[in-house]
């Protein structure tokens, strides 16, 4: 017998607190599609995705209905294109990207990730081709997402790749100048990229993964915020330790939803269940914000002093609750701070509370990085590369994942707005300090060696 409290509180989370399953991502391995004839390669990819992903969307709808919890986004993540498409040139890989786009559209999913390369220790032929193909692919397709891993704790930071990505980002922005550099919103540069992120734009299916797998991303910053508000309304003298406990329990509940639903989707599709990624991932909807949690906990806005400490606590509490809720927790799992996708964070940036430097500090304790950060269009490739390098260093030294999704908005300056639309939201352009003082450093190139932290045998 269920208690009415259990039933009503679950319904409250669903109806008023934006509890949902944020993403169900089907990983499809394309390794067996490899061919050195382009036509055959494209046909193989298309056929495989069609075969495995054909039922993804209908099954997600069925399962969502059964439990009364919507699965908001259905996505596909494929093996890194630089690996499966290694024999091909940049131009040929653009065509592969378009095949991915078409397959995604036919499957009814909104994004397909995996147009990716892993170059932390150096670049191979396929990697060069893939990176060369990125700007045009992202500007000429709608659903393809790209990611490039340029650093790991074990390998160090490939500064040549970092510089190349700075130039690639600028190029992608130029090609989509009329859309405020939209292509860059689908491109992430990573350190220590996980192989099983269900969220975009970083999703790709790692080489150690099975032929098909279901990974689930839950979310629920709104649920966490409401839980904190309720707790404080009940007892205004709660301490941070007690609030941490509240957040932990809430994260547990949210993760359980993802686990149950993800397993059922996996079961019905006949694919193994991979992981639950229990990140607090906001959307531009009111009440679905990570930034608002900061305000509930006594900070005027995200970015003011105290924010890093609070984010550290929040990230940790989320992980603890989620880890108990599921045996297989993976992906990013923590709190996201995407500047454009969270209304409140975007406002904080506009109001001057959240500078690029503060964002960088926050990334040392949260699970993503400089995410959806719009910067002035005249920022040089060298400066973009330097920003990326900083972010990579934070990840490499701290043995965590960090990423940079930077968007230099062509023709716009700090303080102006960039509009990306839909889930990607809109962003205020943040100023980049330091002028053009990083060029000589970036041009030195080479590989920053792996830190001592990597020697842990």
């Amino acid at each position: 017998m269920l208690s009415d409290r259990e039933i009503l509180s679950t319904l409250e989370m669903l109806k008023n607190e934006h509890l949902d399953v944020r993403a169900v991502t089907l990983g499809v391995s394309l390794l067996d599609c490899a061919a050195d004839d382009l036509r055959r390669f494209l046909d193989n990819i298309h056929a495989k995705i069609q075969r495995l992903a054909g039922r993804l969307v209908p099954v997600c709808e069925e399962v969502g209905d059964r439990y009364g919890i919507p699965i908001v986004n259905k996505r596909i993540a494929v093996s890194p294109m630089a690996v499966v498409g290694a024999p091909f040139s940049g131009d040929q890989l653009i065509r592969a990207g378009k095949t991915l786009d078409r397959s995604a559209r036919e499957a009814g999913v909104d994004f397909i990730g995996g147009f990716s390369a892993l170059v932390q220790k150096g670049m191979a032929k396929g990697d060069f081709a893939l990176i060369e193909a990125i700007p045009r692919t992202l500007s000429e397709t709608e659903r393809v997402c790209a990611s490039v891993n340029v650093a790991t704790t074990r390998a160090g930071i490939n500064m040549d790749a970092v510089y190349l990505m700075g130039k690639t980002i600028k190029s992608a922005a130029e090609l989509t100048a009329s859309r405020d550099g939209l292509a860059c919103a689908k491109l992430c540069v990573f350190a220590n990229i996980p192989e099983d992120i269900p969220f975009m734009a970083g999703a790709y299916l790692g080489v150690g993964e099975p032929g098909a797998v279901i990974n689930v991303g839950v979310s629920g910053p709104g649920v966490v915020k409401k839980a904190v508000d309720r707790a404080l309304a009940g007892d205004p003298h709660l301490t941070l330790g007690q609030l941490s406990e509240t957040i932990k329990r809430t994260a547990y509940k949210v993760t359980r939803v993802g686990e149950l639903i993800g397993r059922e989707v996996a079961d019905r599709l006949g694919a193994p269940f991979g992981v639950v990624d229990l990140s607090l991932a906001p959307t531009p909807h009111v009440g679905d914000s990570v930034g608002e949690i900061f305000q509930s906990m006594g900070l005027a806005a995200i970015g003011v002093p105290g924010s890093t400490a609070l984010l550290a606590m929040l990230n940790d509490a989320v992980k603890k609750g989620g880890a108990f809720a599921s045996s297989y927790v993976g992906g990013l799992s923590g709190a996201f701070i995407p500047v454009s996708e969270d209304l409140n964070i975007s406002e904080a940036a506009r109001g001057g509370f959240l500078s690029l430097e503060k964002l960088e500090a926050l990334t040392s304790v949260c699970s993503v990085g400089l995410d959806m950060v719009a910067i002035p269009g005249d920022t040089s490739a060298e400066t973009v590369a330097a920003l990326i390098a900083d972010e990579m260093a934070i990840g490499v030294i701290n043995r965590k994942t960090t990423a940079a999704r930077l968007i230099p908005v062509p023709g716009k300056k700090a303080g102006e707005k960039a509009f990306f639309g839909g889930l990607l939201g809109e962003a205020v352009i943040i100023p980049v300090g330091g002028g053009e003082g990083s060029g000589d450093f970036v041009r030195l190139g080479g590989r920053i060696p792996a830190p001592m932290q990597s020697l842990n045998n």
Partner: protein
Amino acid sequence: MVAFDERGEEGSRMEKVVISVLGRDRPGIVAAVSGILFDLACNIESVSQTILQGEFAGIFIASMPSGISREDLGKRLDEGLRPLGLNVLLKPLEAAPDTGPALPSEPFVITTTGPDRLGLVASVTAVLARFGVNITNLKAVFKGGDLPSRNVMIYEVDIPAGIDQLAFRRTLREKAEELGLDLSLQHRDIFEAVHRI
């Protein structure tokens, strides 16, 4: 309580009775009932009670020893409980008809909130009955007024595997809309997953 033994004393079948008790709630009701049953060597096999708006309702299933009749038991209960302001009803427990193996079904939870009005329970339960959906647990509280959270119906139901699920859902939703109710229909597992370790 003594563990159930169908054969009873001297190999004779022990007769089972259902006793229902209704009255104003206060401490001591179950004690009074079970005291009388103990005195008459009746064994209580199961009990359940509910309290709504201060009114107590309890069902006892008990087995009677061979030396006492239902009439006697009924009289003794009445004598003992009427002075306490309690109404007692006694009937034999009929053996369940043999309907073959139970049809497979799945547990769902239907919740409605919305302004109070005449016919909410009747209308919703009519739809359930029409599709052969059995209610295993029900709690409905109408505090009145228009505030949705004050008027909640929670039905735990078993939906048989063979019915037309889509038609059932559709009919339920249409009925809810007609009644001005916000209705959710969800598999029970989601509530357990969220709230229980």
